[in-house]
């Protein structure tokens, strides 16, 4: 009784594009191909039979018979398409649900990976910045810290050596940034020289 149920309206208009888009990777197009082959089979066999065994049936009768066969095997015929439609639709729904689930899982996976990578990058950048900032702070503390004692009294040779290193483009470090401006240049040489001739530093070293 179920086979005689009328086909749902618009079935083919939904089925064909859906199958073309979604079901090709899963072999469902083969099912459609078979169905279409079955529908055209009667006509083909009739034509072949006409070629092989010519009969006395008139053209009018042949046309009528062909129309009748076509009508019997048309897609809108509820006797043929009832269960098939439902089975194909169920398969399509199942496959679409699988595809959606996979897409959702893939999207979640990439989102999670991107988030993790961004978090790792942020942590790395923050760590590097903190370390650099800490180094600069240490240099600044060293420079602007307690007054130098007698042992730390610099002389003009310290300035001379730093000037020679700058002249030779030799490697300098953060400890050479004596004026604390974040770079090592002639101003640091001048700062060292002024420190060498500073009477306040000597007095501080003497405790006066």
């Amino acid at each position, binding site marked *: 009784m179920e086979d005689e149920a009328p086909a749902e309206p618009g079935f083919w208009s939904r089925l064909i594009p859906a199958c073309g888009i979604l079901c090709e990777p899963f072999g469902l197009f083969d099912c459609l191909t078979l169905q279409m082959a079955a529908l055209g089979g009667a006509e083909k066999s009739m034509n072949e039979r006409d070629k092989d065994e010519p009969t006395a049936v008139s053209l009018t009768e042949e046309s009528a018979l062909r129309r009748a066969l076509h009508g019997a095997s048309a897609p809108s015929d509820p006797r043929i398409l009832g269960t098939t439609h439902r089975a194909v639709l169920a398969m399509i729904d199942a496959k679409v649900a699988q595809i959606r689930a996979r897409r959702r899982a893939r999207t979640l996976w990439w989102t999670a990976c991107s988030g993790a990578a961004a978090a790792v990058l942020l942590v790395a950048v923050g760590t590097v910045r903190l370390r650099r900032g800490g180094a600069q702070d240490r240099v600044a503390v060293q420079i602007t810290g307690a007054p130098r004692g007698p042992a730390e009294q610099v*002389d*003009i*040779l310290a300035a001379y*050596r730093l000037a*020679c290193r700058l*002249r030779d483009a030799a490697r300098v470090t953060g400890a050479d940034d004596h004026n604390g401006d974040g770079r090592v240049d002639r101003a640091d040489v001048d700062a060292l020289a002024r420190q*060498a*001739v*500073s*009477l306040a530093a000597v007095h501080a070293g003497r405790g006066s």
Partner: protein
Amino acid sequence: MRLLWLLVLAMLLAAGCVTPASGAGNGSGNAPAAGVLFLPVDLWLDSGAVPLAAYQVELTYDANSVKIVGLEGGTATAYSDAPYYDRAGFEGGRIIVAAFTTEEEGAPRGKVRVARLHLAVAGGVAPDLTAKLMSAARPGGTRIEVDVQLKPSGQGE
């Protein structure tokens, strides 16, 4: 208005010209004014055959009678600019002067005048001034010993 400005400018120029003229009329460089003797003193260093790349000298004087009123460089090209010094040393009885050159070819050898101090000596007596070498180096930074002398200007050359 323009005439007024020109008048003010002329007065300023006149005032500026009168001051050195009054000092220059008192003698040959030594300018006693109200019992004060202005005396230029040269700082000489002798490094012998070794080129002098850097020096630091400590000068002491009697702060009660001597004030340093100026400090300039020497005759050697490498030390023609004024040396490094602390301005607090102009009146405190003690000053440190230092200079260096990174031009190895320009480092002078032998006896050279590296600085000149302008002193104001009260009472017109000869100042008690001493110099002590703190450090000196040849090109490359190796410490060397140099002879230090202080002489009134015009006597060391």
